């Protein structure tokens, strides 16, 4: 049986607002209220059902806002210009051509060969395992999640429970994720906050987000670090 709403419970609208813009007072209430925890669980379930059943709604943003499509006629010119720039300003061998990792998130890839820290856009293969190191600097709460090319969100760390992981300083997180045979881009997110943010807030913010455009994700009250991986067969 669902717990009944109490006189202290926030309204449904306030709970919805909390999912978009988390507030410490509402978070504190939810932590101690069975009714609001049940509301949050059913909200996450409904959001998943909505994303599953109405992919076109969620995909509209991706399809319409694609800058690639808008600038497609200029791509050949841009490619020529980029090639010219690359020839003129080829990086030195010591300098990485891509940002090697997020400052606050490092994704380690293991399972086949020596473990390595993932570079942005690194190709990863089925069966390889991922581990995560975060360095939020000061005491913080952390969620690790991934988003695939369809915008589906997977929760990675902590795998269970209702609260994020408390981390102080740099820490290699417990647990790992093993890659299956699905191909395509996958973005790993670390969501770092001073106050604990519920998983429902994180899931809703990441759900349907364009995998190649991290700038589309904003989680109020939290900062993010991200690494893009390209999943595929060797």
């Amino acid at each position: 049986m669902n717990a009944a709403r109490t006189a202290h419970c926030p309204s449904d609208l306030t709970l919805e607002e909390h999912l978009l813009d988390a507030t410490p007072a509402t978070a504190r209430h939810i932590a101690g209220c069975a009714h609001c925890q049940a509301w949050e669980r059913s909200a996450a379930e409904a959001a998943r059902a909505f994303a599953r059943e109405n992919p076109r709604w969620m995909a509209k943003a991706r399809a319409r806002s694609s800058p690639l499509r808008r600038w497609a006629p200029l791509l050949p010119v841009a490619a020529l210009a980029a090639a010219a720039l690359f020839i003129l300003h080829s990086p030195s061998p010591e300098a990485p051509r891509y940002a090697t990792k997020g400052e606050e998130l490092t994704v380690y890839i293991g399972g086949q060969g020596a473990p390595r820290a993932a570079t942005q856009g690194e190709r990863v293969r089925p069966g390889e395992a991922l581990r995560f190191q975060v360095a939020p600097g000061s005491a913080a709460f952390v969620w690790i999640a991934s988003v695939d090319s369809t915008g589906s969100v997977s929760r990675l760390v902590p795998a269970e429970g209702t609260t994020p992981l408390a981390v102080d300083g740099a820490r290699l997180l417990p647990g790992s994720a093993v890659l299956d045979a699905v191909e395509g881009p996958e973005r790993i997110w670390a969501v770092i906050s001073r106050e604990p943010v519920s998983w429902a807030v994180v899931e809703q913010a990441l759900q349907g987000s364009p995998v190649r455009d991290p700038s589309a994700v904003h989680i109020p009250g939290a900062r993010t670090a991200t690494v893009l991986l390209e999943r595929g067969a060797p």
Partner: protein
Amino acid sequence: MRDGDALSEICRRLGPAIYRRCLKILRNPDEAADACQKVYMQLVRHRSRLPPEPEQLRWVYVVATRVCFAQLRDDAWETASGAELNHDAPAPTDSFAEVADRQMALKALSCATEHERMVAWLVLVDGHSQEEAAELLSLSRKTVGKRIQLFLANARRGVFE
């Protein structure tokens, strides 16, 4: 950002909230999806004068509420039965007391006008204060209070007679 892009972003950001709102009132995933489309049409129609981002959730929440109650009203006409709401299907986890409470609430709702239902829903189901409900529906607090009183009086009469 172009109009279309801004609208798409609003849909992505608020889509789940709109769906949840519709599902809570209509309790049927297909009908909730239909209602979401109607809310989307309203967003398209009002795209040039949508409120600023912090107020958009509140705006679509009210629009979704109105759309769902209008849909319930139209469905009731189509089925030629004022009590033909979709809330009578018990969930598998519902206890006997919950089903009985819901049936009693249904009986009360079926006696009310659409305006009374909407006010009663916001205050008694969603947990808004009368002031908040008044603000959401652009009514005076006094009107909301009157509608709640009327709803409760009719409900008591309907239940006890």
